[in-house]
């Protein structure tokens, strides 16, 4: 066993999943999650993120392959494996008529832990839910329900925490609270795996990032390395006169002509010392190309996924 393997708290080997409908949700996924890291799994809708998490947690059966969680096979030794895992699902699935305190107590018991009111109180206070402990879940707002799901997942003190799209429908304040808590959990040794659509979220939080698309893990990389690859920005230059084609003199820049020749789009790398914008604008002036507006934007994660799907080699590190 290599050092890297022994440091892995979750080991996924050759996992495939084909649903009864014939849809292949996962294709030969191999992945090691390191102990104590925050790992972000990115991917568009239907990429297989939730299926992968569900297989690790025991909610979905894999068609083939193995998953080891905290040293235990998730099928053969499911008790020990599952006891170490906490899951915050994507959807707000809650018991409407239960109180916050009783639903948390239920979760802790279900995962085989003796009652520990002090721990439950700490989790509820950390999530600003202590005042709501006797409230029925149905009376809480969406954001509060999300906190309740996190509280339930933490009730049995898991060593591995899965957060499936935790920011969906959550306001800025809760998002910040949540990330503060995630950092604290990591500081206390909990490994965190999150899925997200938001690149900023992954950028803020993750140590490593995996990108999954159409059931395949396209890339797994240290965040800093990956952000350099994904951190492209675009400058849209609205022209006074439309162009038929890009002049040869502008070949040095990566330009695209859009909107029927009315807009020049320049893609540049924010990580480089020189973005090339100043030189481009000078060149436009020198060649008498007038423009009336400039607009810079960061490519969305969806755009990046599209580029990953069509040109996977471009981003493979």
């Amino acid at each position, binding site marked *: 066993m290599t050092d890297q393997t022994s440091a892995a708290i979750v080991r996924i080997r050759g996992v495939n999943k084909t*649903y*009864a409908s014939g849809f292949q949700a996962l294709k030969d996924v191999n992945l090691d999650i390191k102990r104590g890291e925050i790992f972000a799994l990115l991917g568009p809708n239907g990429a297989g993120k939730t299926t992968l998490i569900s297989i690790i*947690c*025991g*909610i*979905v*059966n894999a068609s083939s392959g193995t998953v080891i969680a905290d040293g235990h096979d998730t099928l053969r030794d*499911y*008790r*020990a*494996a*599952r*006891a170490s*895992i906490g*899951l915050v*699902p994507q*959807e707000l*699935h*809650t*018991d*409407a*008529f*239960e109180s916050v305190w*009783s639903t948390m*107590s*239920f*979760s*802790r*018991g*279900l*995962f*085989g*832990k*003796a009652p520990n009111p002090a721990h439950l109180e700490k989790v509820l206070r950390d999530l600003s839910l202590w005042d709501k402990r006797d409230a029925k879940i149905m009376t809480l707002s969406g954001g509060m329900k999300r906190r309740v799901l996190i509280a*339930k997942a933490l009730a049995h003190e898991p060593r591995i925490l899965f957060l499936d799209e935790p920011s969906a429908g959550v306001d800025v304040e809760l998002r910040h609270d949540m990330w503060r808590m995630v950092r604290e959990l990591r500081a206390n040794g909990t490994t965190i795996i999150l899925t997200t659509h938001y690149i900023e979220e992954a950028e803020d939080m993750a140590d490593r990032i995996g990108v999954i698309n159409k059931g395949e893990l396209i890339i797994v990389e240290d965040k800093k390395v990956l952000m350099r690859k994904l951190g492209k920005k675009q400058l849209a230059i609205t022209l006074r006169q439309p162009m038929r084609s890009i002049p040869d003199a502008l070949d040095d820049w990566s330009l695209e002509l859009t909107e029927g020749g009315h807009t020049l789009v320049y893609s540049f790398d924010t990580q480089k010392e020189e973005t090339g914008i100043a030189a481009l604008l000078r060149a436009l002036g020198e060649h008498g190309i007038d423009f009336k507006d400039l607009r810079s934007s960061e490519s969305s994660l969806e755009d990046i996924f599209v580029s990953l799907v069509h040109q996977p080699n471009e981003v493979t590190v």
Partner: protein
Amino acid sequence: MNLHGIRAIYRFEMARTFRTVMQSIAAPVLTTSLYFIVFGKAIGSRMGDIDNISYGAFIIPGLVMLSLLSESISNASFGIYMPKWAGTIYELLSAPVSWIEVLIGYVGAAATKSVMLGLLIMGTARLFVPYEIAHPFWLIAILLLTAVTFSLFGFIIGLWADNFQKLQVVPLLIVTPLTFLGGAFYSINMLPPLWQKITLFNPVVYLISGFRWAFYGMADVHIGVSVGVTLGFLLICLTFVWWVFNTGYKLRS
């Protein structure tokens, strides 16, 4: 054994029962009281004794069974169907609990409620009709066995159902007719010979007959056969649930 897990499920289910006490306890007790007033007092007073037992007393075991079966099924089927419907089943599926622990929690709670209800109905019946119990040990044993078996059957219905209609269709269209035709209000000896044979295919006959034997020491079929048939049904249900949890049928995709 995850005892904390079993306790958590059991307490959750019992809390649900007490939250809906009007629906789950008061309503069946009221319905049964109405049966006693109508069949036991009003109509029963004009009917002759059956095997030297007054008609009012004769129908008690059948009426208790009627409530016991329908409440066991409905309580256990709702218990497992609701998390499926609300999506909270994810927690049960990802928890370190075995299928037998899940069963003890859900079926145990459903059966507890049914037994409580059965005893309550027997107590209510005592207000209307005087009766003595010939075999108290067997009465409790049959009460428990029936409650557990039919709670297990209800659990299976809850696993199988993927809408509210399916949840109701088996209790309403199969179990209730079988119970009415299972000798709740008559002795099968009162039927024509051919129907006496046909009715033996109705499993509820064995339950009611066994229960009536525990009350009054008289039965349509031998008590051993009654207990044997119920145990056989229990084993079939257990095997099915074991298969469901092992294959993931309707639970894990």
